[in-house]
C-alpha cells in the first residue's frame, strides 16, 4: 500500500500508487477525505497503478462532488495510466457534459480520457 502525500504545498499533489480497488477502498477514501479537508486545491497523480475498479471511479466522483460543494478544486494529473483510462472508458464514465453538481464545469470525466 503506497499512498504518498506529497509534502509540498506548492503543488498540493497526492500520489496514488498500486492497486486502486474495492479491497483498499476504505483506505483510499480516508486519504481523499483527509487531503480535501487540508487543501483547497487537490491534485491527484497516478503512478505504477496495477489495478483499477469501479469503486475507485466512484470515489473520484464523490471526491469531486465534495470539492465542488466546498468550492475547492480537485484535478487529476494529465499523465493517466492506461489501466485507469481503459477502466474509465469501459465503465462508461466519460462525459461530454458535467453533472448537475458540476456548476463550475470542472467535471473530471470530460477530458483526457481518450
Amino acid at each position, binding site marked *: 500500500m503506497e499512498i504518498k502525500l506529497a509534502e509540498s504545498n506548492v503543488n498540493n499533489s497526492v500520489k496514488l500508487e498500486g492497486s486502486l480497488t*474495492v479491497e483498499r*477502498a*476504505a483506505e*483510499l*477514501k480516508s486519504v*481523499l*477525505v483527509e487531503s*480535501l479537508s487540508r487543501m483547497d486545491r487537490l491534485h491527484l497523480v497516478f503512478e505504477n497503478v496495477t489495478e483499477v*475498479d*469501479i*469503486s475507485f*471511479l*466512484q*470515489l473520484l*466522483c*464523490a*471526491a469531486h*462532488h*465534495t470539492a465542488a*460543494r466546498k468550492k475547492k478544486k480537485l484535478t487529476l494529473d494529465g499523465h493517466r495510466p492506461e489501466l485507469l483510462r481503459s*477502466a474509465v472508458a*469501459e*465503465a*462508461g*464514465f466519460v*462525459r*461530454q*457534459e*458535467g*453533472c*448537475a453538481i458540476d456548476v463550475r464545469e470542472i467535471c473530471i*470525466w470530460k477530458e483526457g480520457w481518450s
Partner: protein
Amino acid sequence: MKDKHRETFKEEASELLAELEDSLLELERSPGDQELMGRVFRALHTIKGSGAMFGFDEIAAFTHEVETVFDLVRNGKVGVTKGLVDLSLAARDEIKALLHGNEPGFSERRQEIIAAIQELMPAPPEGGVEDRPAAPDFPDPDVLPSQELPVTYRICFRPAAEIFLRGTNPLTLFKELRELGECNVIAHAETIPSLAAINPEYCYTAWDIFLTTSRGLDAIQDVFIFVADESDLTIEVIDDGLKPEEDSNYKRLGEILVARGELNPEALDEVLNRRTLIGEALVKANLVNRDQVQSALVEQQHIRGVHKKRHEAQATGSIRVPSAKLDKLVDLVGELVTVQARLSQTADVLEDPQLLSIAEEVETLTGDLRDNVLNIRMLPIGTIFTKFQRLVRDLSAELGREVELSTSGAETELDKTVLDKLNDPLVHLIRNSIDHGIESPEVRVKSGKPGKGKLCLTAGHSGTQVVIRVEDDGVGLDREAIRAKAVGLGWLAPDAEIPDKELFAFIMAPGFSTAREITSVSGRGVGMDVVKKAIEALRGSIEINSRAGQGTAITIKLPLTLAIIEGLLVTIEDEFFVLPLAAVTECVELTREDVAKAHGHNIANVRGEIVPYIHLRERFQINGVPPAIEQIVITEMDHNRVGFIVDNVIGEQQTVIKSLGRIYQGVEGISGATILGDGTVALILDVPQLMHREILEPRAARLQGN
C-alpha cells in the same frame, strides 16, 4: 422469368458448393472447428431452401439428408470423421450433378450415400458412431455464431449495492458483452453521494448499455446470470435489424427519453416549444438529469452507427454480371482506345490548340477507363487455388500418397480470361507432382524425408508479370535419363555440356516422349508440351528447376492482362511494329561504323557490354535500304539482353491486342496485331519467342556442337 431465377439459383448454388467443398476439406483438418461446422451446415441449408423454392425438388430432398447429419455435427452429437467428410464430398458431387441436370430421378449412388450417412447418425445415445475422434474438444455450442441479423438491445443494469463485496466486477461483465458485438456503455453517476456519505465498498452506479449482436437475448442474459437476482436488469430491443432505412435518423433525443418512460410526452412538447437545445433544455427544466441525456445521446449515436454500417454493407455489395458483358465492355474500350489514338494524331496534325486540349483530356479519361475496365475483370487466383485442395486430396488418396497442399499469394489478381485458361495447365502440373514427383510415404521415410509430401502453390507479382510456382519436395527430375533420351533423339551431342535449366526444358518439347516411356524414365513430361503451349498461348513462359531427391519447382510467368498493353511503336521501311514496353529497357543508335566493328557478328557494344541483336529487317525480309543510323531497341527477359534493330522508334503506344486470323496464327515472332490511330495495322512482336529462336537456341546449339 422463372428460368432466369433458376439460372441465378444455379450460379449461386455452384458458389455454395465450392464453399461447401472448401469448408469440408478444412473441417477434415480441424474437426473440432465449430465455425466450419456452421459454414457447412449453412451452405447445405441454403442449397436446400432455395433449391426447393426454384423447383429443384430432388436437390432439396437429397440435401436435406446431408443437412440433417450436419445439424447433429453442429450440436456435437456426431463427430467429424474422415468417413463423414468423404460421404459429404460425394454428396456434394451428386448435388452438383443434379444441378446440371444430370442423372435426375432415382439414383443408386444417392441412395447409397443417404444410407451411409444415416448409419453415421447416433442410434444409441453413446457409441454407435464409428471411429469417432477421441473426444474432440467441442466448444460451447452457444459460441456458434448464428446467422441471424444483428439486433440492437438497450440493457439497463442497476446492480445491488453490495455487488462488489460479493466479488462481482461489473467491468468483467462489460468485457463479456463487448465480445458479443458492438457495445457502448454509459454510467449513471448522478447517484454517487459525496465523500462524507459514500460507503466506498458499495456500488452506487447504474448503467445503460447499448449492444448490437446477432447472438440473441440468451447470450446477453448469460452474461448477467450470476448477478441477475440481485440487480435490476431490463433488456429491450431498440433495433431489430430489419427496420427499413427510412428511420436512419433514428429517434430524436426527446423521443428516446419518452420511449424509455423517463419523460412524459406533454412535458417534452412544452419544452420543445421553447426551442433551445433539447438536452440542455430538459436538464434546465429539471425533467431529466444530465446522465440520462448523455445516455440517450450515446444510444442515438450507437443506433446511427448501426444504420450507417448496414447502409454501407448494402452499398458495397456486389452485383452479378455475366462475363460476356464484361468482355463486350473490354472490346468497346479497346475500340475507344484506338479512336482516341486517332483523335490525338489528328489533333497533332491540325495543331489546333483547342482540339489538342480536348484530345489530351480524352486521352487521360480513356486511360483511366481502360484501367478500370480491365480491373473489373481481374480475379484473385485463389478462386482456382481452392479447387486444387480437392484435387490434391482425391489424387493422393488414389495414388497412395500423403500430400499437404499449401498455397500463398491467393490474393494475386489475374485477368479472368488468363485465369480460365490457366486451370488445365496447373491441374496437369499438380497431377505430375503427385503422380511422379512425390514418393509414397514408405519410400519417403526410407530416404529420410517426412512421410507427408509437400506441394506448394504460390503466386505473386513481379513487375508487369504474375509469377506462379508449383513446387514439390519429391524425387526431382532424373537428369541422366533426360540427357540419355535427348542424346538418343539426336537433340544433344553425347558430350555436350548444358545447363540443367535447358536440359529440363527438353521435357516440354513436343515429341520428346510418349506418355508411358517418360513415366518410367524421368517421371515427368506427360503432356508437358501441352502445358507449355497453353502457357505460351497466354504470352507467358515456363521454367523448370529440379534437384535430384529434393524436388521440382515449375515457374510460370504470365502477363497481367491479355487485352491491352503498353507498347513501343517502331518502323522498318514503312511497316509498323510494336514491342511490349514492359520488355524494353532502352534504345540506342547503331551506326554503320558500329556494324563494321563487329566483323559480321550481330553484336553491339552498349557501354562496354556485348549485346547480341536481331536484325528485324533481315528477319522479316523487308526490302529496301536501311538508314545510315539505325536504332537498337534493347529488351531484357530472364537476365538475357537482346537488341532489335529497327529504322525508327516512334514512341509509346497503348496497344489493343487483336488476335491474328487463323492463317497467321502459326507465324513465329508475331504474337498479334493492333490498329493504329490512322487505321494502319501494326504487328506485335513476340519478344520472348524471337529471343529464343534467334539468339538463345543457336547459342545452345553452338555450345553443344563444341
